[in-house]
Structure formats: structure tokens, C-alpha cells
């Protein structure tokens, strides 16, 4: 029998293999996960609910199957938990709000069904910024989610619990959503890999919307290989989501072994490093040197100004969020937290013509960006955040008029890729003096997730960051 600590720091890929090879039973793995959840839950507040009885029952059934035959399901018996915004028949997805607790799901979200079919065991529902509206993880209803490396600091949002719970070793991976950085921020702030896929690569059916035109769904994991494995299970066309692409899903796991020798990496000369702190910039430079050492050609390039996208991305996200929330905001304003409410209010006053203009020019904008950037490089590399991960107190903005600026600072480097619809992966690239992780963001042309996994995986193998764990 393996010790609990041996179990909960294994990667998703490793634990799935250990179960298949009968080195450990599913019940042992699930019990270790539940014990770890019990230990860290009061510290990081990453869980809204824990499904201990359901998980134990599923583990016992899985062990019975394991005694009969070797399982083929890729995640057989692996404990996962997800941002509490994915519909599941028989359960309430709260969206970490008071309001969604009254909404009964009529179907199970496609990503949840696909992970269930892959044999994963769902052990709980994870905290998030209310209605997935906020990059910090503050939540006035369920309590603020806290960073696994230091609970005084933000976990990042909006998939705050997905980041903190995975980093804390309570689960082996989680699904989050990303409208302006909500997978990459908590992944990076907690020292994880996190992928915002190409818009249209992963089904959003059954996912609580924030802004339909920008929302994406993807994994947060402790390794890039785990990220590739989860993506290989959830990606692909879904008849229930007309916005999913019919393009074939590449073999992401195989892409991990692809050589990156000669890969062209672009470091933006403009925008992405404006105002970057010395500490973060040093870590970023070191990461770029590691990419060079891997045989990549690293060049500084000018990119079309992403600062220009911010306003039109906001025109889209705020207009769509206001439409989604209009009835609840009129009828139940007292049931909203400060951040979620104030960030949605301006959407009621953006002219519809501007919203449609922002959508109409989008294809031309991305065409220009891709042609100008990805004719010169295969991957664009940027810091994920230009300063050290802040504390919960420092970002607990009470004046609604000041919240947009705070949000803008945190999402500055992530949000452009949502408007552009491009895939972007974050991988840890070191620690700042405050002991919090820093992230390297890698972006590529549409549907080139394989390229990101190849590069991110190669970088991860030559750096020590994935083997460091928080001391909770």
C-alpha cells in the first residue's frame, strides 16, 4: 500500500497507470483524496461541496470491475473535481452564487459526461468567482478561495478552486472555464499547467455561460502531460454545441514527444512586458533561455497592439453577461456579490451596434494577427502576469468604480487571446520572492494545441517547477 503523501503528489497520468496496473486500489486513491480534501479544505476553501459517499460508492464499484478485468478507460478510478458551473443531472451547479442554487440542470454537461465515460470519479464541486466573473477568486457567498502556496494570496479566478485544489494535491486535475484568463490565471498563480483551448475546440454545452463569444472550457493540472491527457478526452465536436469545430482532434499525448528543435518562438517587443516587475521579467528571461537551450529559435517581434482588443473584448463580454444576468440583476440584486454585480452593470449601457461591430470585425482582426505573427513564429511567449501574485487584501476592491482597473491589470496578458480565440497554455516558470509561482504563457495559431503541448512539455522536462509542491 502506498502512503497518502505518495498518492496525492502523483500526477494524473501516474495515478491512472498505477490503478490500471493494480499497484493501488481505487478505494485507496479515493480515500487518500478525501483525507487530503479534509486536511486542506479549511485552509484554501477550494471546495463548495464534497461528494464523499458518492465517491466511495463509485470507488467500490470500480474496484469490483478492476478485480474482473483490466480497465481500458483512460481515467479509470481517478478522483477529479470541477469548477461548480457544469450542469450534472441530479446535482445543483451553484456557479458559486446564491441564485444558481435554484436552477435545476436538465442535462449533464458534455465535458462532465466525457470525463465520466473516461472513468473519472467526481469527488466534489469547486469554488469560483461568483458567476465566473472575476480574476481573483473573491467570493462573498462561499468565502474567498485561497492560494495553495500561501493562503493570504489570491488563488486567481475565476476557476479559483480548480487551481487551489489541484495544486494542494486534493485532486489530480480539474476543469475550468476561461473568458478572459480564468483557467490560466489560477493555474499560474498555483504553479500548474492550464490550457485555454481554441474557441470551438471544447464543448460548452451545460457550462454556465459568462460570455458566449469568448467562453472556453479546459483543464488545470499539475503537469503538461496531464493537461494533454484531459484535453484529449474532452476536445472535439459536440452535436449539442453548434459552436464546436468539426476539425479532427490531433493526438495530444503523442505531441508531447515531438521535438521542439528549430521551433520559432516570438517574444513580443510591445505590450506584453510593459511595466513588468524585475522579478517576473528575470524569470521570464530565464524561461526564454531554457527554450533556446532546447533548440528553439527565440526572437523578439512586434505584434499588432493587443491593447486595442481590450475595449472590443469588453464590449462583447459585458453585453453578453448583461443579457445573461438581466432578469436576475433586476429581480434579485441583493443576491449578487459586489464584484460580479458591478462588473456586469455597464453591459446594460453598451449600444447594441457597438456589440455587433465588435463581433463583426473579429474575424478580420484575428486574420491579421495570425498572419502577422504566426508567419514569423510558431509560438508567442509572454509572462502570464507582469507582477507578483497579489494578496487577497490588496485586491479586495470595495469601490465598484475601481474594480475594472484592478481586473484590467490582472487580465492584461491573458484577455487578448480570448478575443482572438487562440489557444494559450500556461506553465510554471519559477517563484518570486514572496514564494508564489510565476507563469510562462505560450500561445499559438488556431487549433495548434499540439504545438503548445510539445513546447510546454519539453520546457517542463528541463525545469524543476512541476516537482515542487506547496507545504499545506
Amino acid at each position, binding site marked *: 500500500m502506498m502512503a497518502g503523501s505518495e498518492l496525492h503528489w502523483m500526477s494524473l497520468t501516474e495515478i491512472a497507470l498505477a490503478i490500471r496496473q493494480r499497484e493501488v486500489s481505487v478505494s485507496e486513491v479515493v480515500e487518500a483524496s478525501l483525507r487530503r480534501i479534509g486536511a486542506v479544505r479549511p485552509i484554501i476553501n477550494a471546495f463548495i461541496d464534497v461528494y464523499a459517499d458518492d465517491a466511495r460508492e463509485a470507488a467500490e464499484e470500480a474496484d469490483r470491475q478492476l478485480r474482473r478485468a483490466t480497465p481500458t478507460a483512460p481515467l479509470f478510478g481517478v478522483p477529479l473535481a470541477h469548477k461548480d458551473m457544469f450542469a450534472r443531472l441530479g446535482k445543483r451547479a451553484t456557479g458559486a452564487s446564491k441564485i444558481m442554487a435554484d436552477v435545476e440542470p436538465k442535462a449533464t454537461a458534455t465535458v462532465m459526461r466525457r470525463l465520466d465515460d473516461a472513468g473519472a470519479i467526481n469527488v466534489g464541486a469547486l469554488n469560483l468567482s461568483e458567476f465566473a466573473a472575476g480574476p481573483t477568486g473573491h467570493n462573498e457567498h462561499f468565502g474567498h478561495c485561497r492560494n495553495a502556496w500561501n493562503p493570504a494570496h489570491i488563488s486567481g479566478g475565476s476557476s479559483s478552486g480548480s487551481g487551489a485544489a489541484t495544486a494542494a494535491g486534493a485532486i489530480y486535475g480539474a476543469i475550468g472555464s476561461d473568458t478572459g484568463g480564468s483557467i490560466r490565471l489560477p493555474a499560474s498563480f498555483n504553479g500548474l499547467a492550464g490550457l485555454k483551448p*481554441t*474557441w*470551438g475546440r471544447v464543448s460548452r454545452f451545460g457550462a454556465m455561460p459568462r460570455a458566449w*463569444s469568448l467562453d472556453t472550457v479546459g483543464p488545470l493540472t499539475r503537469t503538461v502531460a496531464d493537461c494533454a491527457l484531459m484535453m484529449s478526452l474532452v476536445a472535439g465536436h459536440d452535436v449539442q454545441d453548434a*459552436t464546436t*469545430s468539426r*476539425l479532427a482532434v490531433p493526438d495530444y499525448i503523442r505531441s508531447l514527444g515531438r521535438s521542439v528543435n528549430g521551433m*520559432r518562438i*516570438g517574444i513580443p*517587443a510591445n505590450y506584453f512586458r510593459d511595466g513588468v516587475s524585475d522579478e517576473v521579467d528575470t524569470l521570464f528571461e530565464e524561461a526564454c533561455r531554457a527554450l533556446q537551450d532546447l533548440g528553439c529559435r*527565440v*526572437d523578439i*517581434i*512586434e505584434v499588432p497592439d493587443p491593447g*486595442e*482588443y481590450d*475595449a*472590443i473584448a*469588453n*464590449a462583447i463580454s*459585458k453585453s453578453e453577461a*448583461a443579457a445573461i444576468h*438581466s432578469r436576475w*440583476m*433586476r429581480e434579485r*440584486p441583493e443576491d449578487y456579490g459586489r464584484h460580479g*454585480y458591478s462588473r456586469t*452593470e*455597464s453591459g*446594460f*449601457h*453598451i*449600444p447594441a451596434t*457597438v456589440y*455587433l*461591430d*465588435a*463581433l*463583426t*470585425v*473579429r*474575424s*478580420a*482582426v*484575428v*486574420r491579421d494577427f*495570425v*498572419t502577422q505573427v*504566426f*508567419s*514569423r*513564429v510558431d509560438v508567442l511567449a509572454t509572462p502570464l502576469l507582469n507582477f507578483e501574485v497579489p494578496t487577497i487584501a490588496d485586491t479586495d476592491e470595495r469601490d*465598484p*468604480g475601481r474594480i*475594472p482597473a484592478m481586473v484590467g491589470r490582472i487580465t492584461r496578458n491573458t484577455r487578448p487571446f480570448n478575443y482572438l*480565440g487562440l489557444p494559450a497554455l500556461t506553465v510554471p516558470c519559477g517563484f518570486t520572492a514572496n514564494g508564489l509561482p510565476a507563469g510562462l504563457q505560450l500561445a499559438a*495559431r*488556431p*487549433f*495548434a494545441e499540439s504545438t503548445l503541448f510539445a513546447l510546454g512539455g519539453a520546457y517542463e522536462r528541463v525545469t524543476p517547477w512541476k516537482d515542487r509542491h506547496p507545504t499545506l
Partner: protein
Amino acid sequence: MYITAEFVLAQSQALASPEIDAERAAQLAMEVNTLLQKATPLIERYRDLYADPFAFLSALEELSIAQLPKEEPHDGRQ
């Protein structure tokens, strides 16, 4: 395009959008006007009568397989 705090307040009352006071109306007007001011140049630059606002997925799919010209990175700084 420019909206006033009075317009935000009146619209909020007329459309029964969330209730706000004059101070919040002023904040929202400023937020929206900043957004409009920043968004307009890009919109004007890319405006195309025949562009389809709902064809973004097709654009991404097309760009994923398009042959891009191979260009040397600019300025060569490393």
C-alpha cells in the same frame, strides 16, 4: 458616440435595468465612454459591410490550415 450619466440613469429606469444612483450612473457612463472611445478606431479600421458577425469559428478553422508566408522575425534582437 458618447453617453451621459443622465442617459444611463434614464435608461436604467426606462428599461428596468438594475437600479442605480446618480454617482454610479456617472461611473458607468465614464466606463462605457472609455470603452467606446477605445473600441471605435479598431472597429472603423476593420469595418466591412460583408463581414458576418457570426462566422468566427469558420475564420479560426480557415486560419488553422492556411499556408502562412514564412517570414523572418523582425529586427532579429535576441
